[in-house]
């Protein structure tokens, strides 16, 4: 017989594995993007199968956990949160996959000048840093750490908001580079979306730890614990 604690720990470990796998996918997609390394991009594409398989495994294990243990209170919040976290991470993996597909489809690397004015590297770094924070928050079950990502997501949103104007100006000056602009625009959108997904994950960690639903709400910083 597998005890509730053992089952929960196994699920928790699968969550850590999914976090680490999706972070690695995004990191490889970034490296492939900046070095135009199609081999590395291929690797991301191949590894997408592992992400999908782990996604299915976690879903199935969560279902079993609920069916076998009838969890309540923090056990229930944990498994509900993990299901959503898993869903969001799988989407992060999809975006890393999407970015890698562009690298293979586009022959020429993107001009450094464009990358700089569009602040793409900063976006990648912010997204990866958010994934690092959220991994720590998940492992430590620390809602305060989870809240750190809300601020970082604003950087991504800001760059994304400005990108449209920059692109519309640049494309008039260099219409021959339109393909590159469109690709960049897509990558920026994906990175902005990754920021949103990591924010969702932070909300789930807060829900799990504090039984507080913070989604669709202005983010607050407060702490509460149980009475002994």
């Amino acid at each position, binding site marked *: 017989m597998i005890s509730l*604690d053992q089952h929960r720990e196994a699920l928790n470990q699968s969550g850590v594995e999914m976090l680490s796998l999706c972070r690695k996918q995004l990191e490889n997609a970034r490296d492939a993007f900046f070095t135009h390394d199609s081999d590395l991009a291929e690797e991301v594409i191949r590894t997408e199968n592992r992400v999908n398989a782990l996604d299915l495994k976690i879903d199935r294990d969560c279902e079993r956990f609920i069916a076998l243990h009838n969890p309540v209170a*923090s056990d*229930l*919040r944990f498994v509900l949160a993990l299901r959503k976290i898993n869903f969001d991470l799988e989407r992060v993996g999809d975006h890393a996959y999407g970015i890698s597909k562009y690298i293979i489809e586009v022959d020429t690397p993107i001009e450094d000048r464009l990358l700089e004015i569009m602040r793409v590297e900063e976006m990648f770094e912010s997204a990866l840093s958010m994934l690092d924070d959220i991994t720590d928050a998940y492992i430590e079950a620390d809602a305060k750490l989870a809240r750190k990502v809300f601020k970082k997501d604003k950087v991504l949103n800001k760059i994304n908001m400005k990108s449209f104007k920059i692109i519309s100006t640049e494309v008039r000056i260099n219409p021959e580079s339109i393909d590159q602009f469109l690709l960049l625009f897509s990558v920026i959108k994906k990175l902005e979306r990754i920021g949103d997904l990591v924010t969702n994950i932070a909300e789930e960690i807060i829900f799990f730890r504090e*039984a507080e639903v913070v989604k669709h709400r202005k983010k607050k910083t407060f702490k509460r614990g*149980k*009475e002994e």
Partner: protein
Amino acid sequence: MSKKEKGIVIDKSIKRKHKLETKGVKVFYDDFMAIKGIDMTIKANKVTAFIGPSGCGKSTFLRLFNRMNDYVDGFRLEGEVRIDGENIYKKKINVEQLRKQVGMVFQKPNPFPKSIFENVAYGLRIQGINDKRYLSEKVEDSLKQVALWDEVKDDLNKSAIALSGGQQQRLCIARTLAVEPSIILMDEPTSALDPLSTAKIEELIYELKEKYSIVIVTHNMQQAGRISDYTAFFYLGELIEYDRTKKLFTNPEKQQTENYITGRFG
């Protein structure tokens, strides 16, 4: 039954909403303190579940409300147990009247070795009611309330012992309802029943709260979650946490409660 009779605890002509309260209640069995000072208010027309590990005092506490502990050797009470503000342990209380108002359903169905009809009519008969038409109406009404009427209406003279466990328990609830109580105490009413019979009793409890205040002791966490509006967690004779069931089962305030409901101790 004359309402002028001395010792009526609850005057049903005024209202049907009856509130149970305890103030500083301590229960001793000789030197052993089974309940260690509990203040609690149980809301009218709600289902309140008592949960906690064996020996935590929840059944003792439940039985205070119809003075069933009076028979236990060495039982002693400190503090007050009130129904609608009236202390039910004061001297002039008529205990028989109290038990008429506060019905009880036990863990194991305990039909009398009599016919189905006589089982339900029993409480009324001992009150001196023998009017056949009145008894028939009450029996039918009570059996309908527990959704047993359609199953037994053609066999009312058959022995109650021949019924299935689930039917027997519903019959016992009907017997309790026949004397028109206002409060129903249930001590693990489904622990001896199969899942289908359990579901029927749970559905019944949910419907009965329209008319009665129900307090139920259960070891089945999911049952407490499903049927009760409020849940009280007892441990070692103390009331650890008492809150809305939705709150207690999703985000309890106390770590002890969390540990118990998630199966980590107890």
